[in-house]
């Protein structure tokens, strides 16, 4: 064990040759999120805040809110209401500190043809009309489905991504090795990779962040929708649900029988995207009218 530590240390020393400081060494040796005790986690979050300050020259607060007991989050999306305005996409980008260059977006809105129905081979994610909705089309936003049986979690060789007790699949961006096996495994195209160093103008950064959620990511790691873990664990709606002008987006606690999401599941016609793959999503498409 000792020689390995020495070996890794020398690699770390080499890689940080130019600006060798203890923060970089600590970052290299940082343990997996689930193995940090409270004090260690605190130190890690403070280190990240220093890193971000140096990088963006903005005071960013990194916190870590634990899951709420007896809560499992679920999402409903009303296909009969969505007009494809993509306001959810941009609210998500701003809330979750997604890279502006290259552009990363966690939500992909698919434009579909009404006479074809939900048919992936006839979709266009890059539609740019002057006005939406377009004649003869409907819209299907796709984002992480927070599956109860997530294939992406199953394939990760280092447990860098896992499902939290409230049903949210998270990524430890400091543990991910960037092998992208999870991206191959996800049937919903929900995962994004940082192919180069993400860039966000300092003025556009959201400084209220969660370790497992919207804190700025680095080059070479995978990221994804967390149902705005930094908001929803503190009693707020996800940014996409809050901004939606048509009320297509519904969010709530699946364990609470009185919640709106449970009402929808009971009373509306719900469909599960790619149900044959048995991913058991906690993201339900429904037809409200």
């Amino acid at each position, binding site marked *: 064990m000792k020689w390995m530590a020495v070996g890794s240390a020398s690699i770390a020393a080499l890689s940080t040759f130019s600006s060798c400081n203890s923060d970089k060494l600590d970052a290299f040796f940082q343990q997996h999120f689930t193995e940090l005790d409270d004090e260690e986690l605190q130190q890690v979050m403070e280190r990240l805040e220093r890193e971000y300050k140096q990088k963006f020259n903005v005071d960013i607060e990194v916190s870590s809110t634990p899951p709420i007991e007896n809560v499992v989050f679920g999402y409903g999306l009303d296909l009969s209401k969505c007009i494809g305005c993509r306001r959810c996409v941009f609210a998500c980008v701003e809330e979750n500190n997604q890279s502006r260059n290259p552009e990363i977006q966690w939500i992909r809105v698919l434009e579909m043809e009404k006479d074809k129905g939900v048919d992936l081979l006839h979709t266009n994610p890059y539609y740019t009309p002057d006005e939406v909705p377009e004649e003869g089309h409907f819209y299907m936003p796709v984002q992480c489905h927070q599956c109860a049986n997530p*294939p992406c979690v*199953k*394939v990760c060789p280092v*447990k860098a991504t896992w499902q939290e007790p409230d049903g949210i699949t998270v990524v430890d961006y400091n543990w991910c090795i960037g092998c992208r096996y999870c*991206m191959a495994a*996800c049937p919903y*195209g929900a995962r994004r990779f940082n*192919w180069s160093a993400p860039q966000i103008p300092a003025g556009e950064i959201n400084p209220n962040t969660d370790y497992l959620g919207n804190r700025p990511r680095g080059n070479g790691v995978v990221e994804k929708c967390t149902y705005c873990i930094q908001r929803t664990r503190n009693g707020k709606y996800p940014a996409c649900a809050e901004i939606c002008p048509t009320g297509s987006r519904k969010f709530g606690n699946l364990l609470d029988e009185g919640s709106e999401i449970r009402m929808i599941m009971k009373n509306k016609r719900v469909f599960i995207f790619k149900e044959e793959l048995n991913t058991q999503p906690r993201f339900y498409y429904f037809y409200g009218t």
Partner: protein
Amino acid sequence: MHLKEFIIGSIKAILRGSRVYWAWITLLLVLIGIGIVSYYNQAVNGLVTTSMRDQVSWGFYIGNFTFLVGVAAAAIMLVIPAYIYNWKPLKEIVILGELLAISAIIMCLLFILVDMGHPERFWHMFPFIGKLRLGQSILSWDSVVLTLYLVLNFVIASHILFRAFRIKDYSKRYVIPLILLSVPAGIAIHTITAFLYNGIAARPFWNSAILAPKFLASAFCSGPAIMIILFQVLRRTTKLEIEDRALWKLAELMAYTMFFNLFLTGAEIFKEAYSDTEHKLFTEYLYFGIGEHNKIVPYGWLAIIFDTIAFILFLVPATRKNIITLNLGAVLIYTGVYIEKGIGLIIPGFTPDTLGEIYEYFPSRTEIFVTIGIFSAGFLLYTLLLKVAVPIILGELTYKTHSKSGH
């Protein structure tokens, strides 16, 4: 123990060579240099220097990895014919396969490393100090069996060579069981690599039970293809005696496995074409393209054509026994399987992506240069290993020759 003599003797063997040898080494070093410069560029600017994107998130690197796992697995398959046909110098043949397996696995590991977003976090995959997730992740299992296979081959090869260096016979009691163990281990590394893709329900092109048997069948062809060429080089440049008969037997064996490979390919194509579901689209992309997206179509066909020609060449005794058509067949098979398992396997798996989008992938210059660099590194390693191993198994390099020449 003669360890010192072994090391000095090895270094001397490596440094002694013809002009052709040094030209070869220089060429490889230059190509490795180009690879390193390209990788440096990738490391600084990120994987954006490759053509991979979110839609096609694996590409040329992982394709090469897959192909080379096959080479590593097949190298040891030589052990089986060596037993079945009772070739005289068993250890000579086996050791060449072992060393090829070692070189191929090292190349595999390099391809994985260059594909990673964070190669310096490699230690996260180690048990105990990292968090290796054994159980569900096939990639974890793959890394474990690849490592075991590397160790196994290293132990066998170094034991046989070191014993021969000391003019002693290798210990049959230990080596024979280990060699026999390496046969299922070879099958295991390739099966598990196939499962890596096979288990992904999100990608219908891979999610087929035929994948693992097909991997094995094509590996049985590509590994011996290298050996056929190599044996001819070695018997010309060294005193190693390899009969034509041995080459013909290898080619015959390859004809059968290539038939099986083509048969499985045909079975797969039938299923897609006849059932005519949405899933047919991935196979269509490989062989016909989708709309204007047809960059990899020529490669799809090249693989099938090369495989078929080589199959016929190796099936007909006259062309199998003709040295020109024999070599042509070996090159065709190598190229055919290389395409089939690289670009032909990875890219259609991702095209169209899970939400129906088509992103046309073709390797970038960085990917091609880094790949050339890794192949050169592998060839260099194999060349140097052979440079030491061949004189030892011929009895030309022992601890005695060293002390004679050394004093």
